[in-house]
């Protein structure tokens, strides 16, 4: 479990996020939602160990993140960032292969081939495999980066080390079908025991796939908890400063309209 305790991050005098606490649980998808500038990406950078909070602490499986070495962290947690640029002519295979970098010269290096073989099918990038990354479209690049993150958290059956996947707007460049496909994959990963934290813009994707939702507004938690209860008309209308309507379909799925 990754626990955020009273996280505050300041830039100059302004607090980007204020006193935020929540948990990312193995086996669950936690969605981080909120308007632009609410502090979602800042929160991801704190939880992933990239940025030290000014106040508060992050624990990963009970250990303070400050005490965990970058390599040890990389072996159990992958991060998919927004807007990765690559100016060098790597093939897709090479980019995805870099996801196995933390396991170089370790016992798990023996799994590299199995991991890459699995993730290229999961991410649906078999046809792109030998192509140059630079020649891909934005959406294809995003799927390749997703596959790289999957390769990083791939593990053998019976390996019980908790693993986590952080996704910062993973669907921003994807078309309708691939958005669903990516979250279906995240769902399956969570079901296999991985803790997923995703910053999402599409509220309906969050409603369909997230187990828990954290609603951020002005750097503070507006509401957090089980998805259906948290994504209420009242909460969403306040959060996004816009009248939001939540309709429940006969099959129980919520549809959010704004």
């Amino acid at each position: 479990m990754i626990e955020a305790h009273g996280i505050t991050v300041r830039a100059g005098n302004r607090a980007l996020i204020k006193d935020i606490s929540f948990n990312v649980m193995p086996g669950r998808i936690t969605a981080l939602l909120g308007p632009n500038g609410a502090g979602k990406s800042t929160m991801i950078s704190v939880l992933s160990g990239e940025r030290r909070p000014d106040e508060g602490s992050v624990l990963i499986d009970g250990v303070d993140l400050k005490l965990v070495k970058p390599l040890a962290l990389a072996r159990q947690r992958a991060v998919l960032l927004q807007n990765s640029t690559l100016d060098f002519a790597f093939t897709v295979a090479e980019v995805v292969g870099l996801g196995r970098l933390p396991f170089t010269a370790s016992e798990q290096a023996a799994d590299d081939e199995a991991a890459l073989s699995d993730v290229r099918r999961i991410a649906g990038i078999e046809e792109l495999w030998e192509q140059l990354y630079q020649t891909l479209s934005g959406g294809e690049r995003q799927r390749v980066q997703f596959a790289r993150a999957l390769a990083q958290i791939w593990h053998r059956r019976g390996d019980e080390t908790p693993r986590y996947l952080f996704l910062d707007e993973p669907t921003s460049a994807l078309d309708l079908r691939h958005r669903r496909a990516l979250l279906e994959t995240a769902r399956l990963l969570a079901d296999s025991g991985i803790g997923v934290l995703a910053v999402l813009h599409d509220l309906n994707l969050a409603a369909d796939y997230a187990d828990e939702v954290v609603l951020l507004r002005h750097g503070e938690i507006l509401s957090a908890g089980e998805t259906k209860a948290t994504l209420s008309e009242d909460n969403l209308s306040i959060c996004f400063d816009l009248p939001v309507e939540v309709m429940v379909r006969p099959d129980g799925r919520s549809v959010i309209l704004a």
Partner: protein
Amino acid sequence: MDKGPMTDIVQASLPPLRLVRRPFVLAGLAVLLGLTFVLALAVGAMPIPLREVIAILFGFDADSQSQAIILGLRLPRAVLAILVGAGLGLSGAALQGLFRNPLADPGLIGISGGAALGAVGIIVLGHMLVAIIPFAADPRLMPLAAFVGGLIATFATERLAHHRGVAATGTLLLAGIAINAIAGALMGILIFMSDDNQLREITFWTMGSLAKGGWSGALLAGPFVVLAILVMLRYSQALNAMLLGEREAMHLGVSVERLKRIVMVAAALAVGASVAVTGIIAFVGVVVPHLVRMAAGPDHRIVLPGSALLGASLLLVADSLARVIVIPAELPIGLMTSLIGSPFFLWLLLHRKGLKS
């Protein structure tokens, strides 16, 4: 294949993956190095037949004059060319990975200038300080001074050009110009202070030449260059991760700040030691890695050793040409590499897609 939970997620079944590796590129470059090495020993004001060159190398009896030329003159020079070429090529490749910019050349970003300033400082100031510090003019101090000068220049360029994990081409080159200008100005002061003898020596540093090094030069630079090369080779995978971005590399477990310090210190060491013995030899660091990348892609596990091999070959060829073009005189090799390298650099600037600052 049934190994992990993700295997369950996979529906279809594909044959196992085989990543394409390109070991033949390295093998080819090693063969090229062997050929250029023998060529460099054979050509010169007095050409020596290849059969005789090989006989001498393997210790068979041969014409004593040829033996003296090869073992006393050409062999140390060729060894120096290999050391310097390998050091410059590999340093260039490693810095380009670190800065995520294929145009980062030790010369262009100011390392060579800083290193030359350090070496020239020993020539001029060393003689003035010799009364106070007896060993101040010892030529063995030059690699150290060149290393320090190069190191300061490297860190200064990094400070000036690095913003949010990327050294944008424009800023990087501008920072290099600024650092080179400062080094040039300080060098100007030293030149102004120097006497005729020192002036001749300084001119030698700025043009670059393998002529004066000899065995002592090779022994002086050798340990530093070899050490730096071995250090940089260890970080090929970390440099691959850096190409994805600094944050991405960090999330892949790379200690980014530590990597930067180690690679910059190692590059300054290799370039500094080279410059101390041979003066400034420009463009090797940008041309060579680019050619290797064109042949084998950007994977540093191939680009780093490949750049060392090709850099060594290139310098052997350039030096062979420098020795035969204007017999009985010879051109400074720095002039040769600049003549070849600057048009290539210009071509790179014009044709590189995505060259934005």
